[in-house]
């Protein structure tokens, strides 16, 4: 496949609900109550029940995994957690991921993720290093 820097390789919007948070808590073992109890979130000064940062990180890489399919492997993946994703009990939260080619060389390709919620980015320096076969 012929890629150039700036190519958008994948894009996906995720609808996160409170159910998603409970499911992720169980799957990951992270039972911090700020991810499912409004009273606890409020008591520590948060804008509401938040998505686990690792849930946001976990779903944000999925469009890249699907794009890679069997044609390569992930060498590295890193993010900074810059803004929380508050998940409304009724409306949930909509998180959009755009994956672009950030850098290319012989051994690896860097895919940069732009991950947004309410028009603001929630992950900083979100980069996936992949090896294409």
């Amino acid at each position, binding site marked *: 496949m012929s890629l150039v820097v700036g190519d958008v390789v994948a894009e996906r919007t995720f609808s996160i609900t409170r159910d998603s948070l409970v*499911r992720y808590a169980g799957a990951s073992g992270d039972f911090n109550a700020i991810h499912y109890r409004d009273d606890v979130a409020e008591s*520590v000064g948060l804008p509401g029940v938040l998505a686990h940062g690792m849930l946001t990180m976990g779903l944000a890489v*999925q469009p890249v*995994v*699907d794009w890679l399919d069997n044609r390569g492997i992930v060498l590295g993946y890193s*993010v900074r957690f810059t803004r929380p994703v508050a998940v409304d009990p009724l409306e949930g939260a909509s998180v959009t991921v755009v994956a672009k080619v950030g850098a290319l060389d012989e051994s690896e390709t860097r895919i940069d993720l732009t991950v947004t919620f309410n028009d603001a980015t929630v992950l900083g320096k979100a980069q996936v290093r992949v090896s294409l076969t």
Partner: protein
Amino acid sequence: MNPELQGRVFPPTAPYLVGREKVREFARAVFATSPLNFDPAAAEDAGYDDVVAPPTFPVVVQEATLAQLLAEPDGGIDFTRVVHGEQAFSYTRPIVAGDELVATLAVTSIKSLGGNSMVTAESTIVDANGAHVVTATSTLVVRGDA
């Protein structure tokens, strides 16, 4: 936080056996759709022994090491003040169901920044043969007194 934590290496965790249903459960939770995460036949066709775990699955194994860090008697880390700042994974190969994984935590850096402390915890995860699978690195921000 105790600055002497820097450089400390913790005892290896008890082996974690990666189950096929756990991989599927985690994959569903992170909205994964790849057949490699769910279908053993698809994974075998791609050259793996069993279903492949999503890229952030190592956090399940890493969790035990972060618990060691927070429980360290002289660590001085107040769990209720900890915020996850950064996370990174560096892979030698993907985790697959059937792997028996052991994680070893090292505190690689402690910094003070404007009343907060930042601790970088690196968990090296190896398989039953001792071969490197993935290193999971967390930077935790411990908020100072407001």
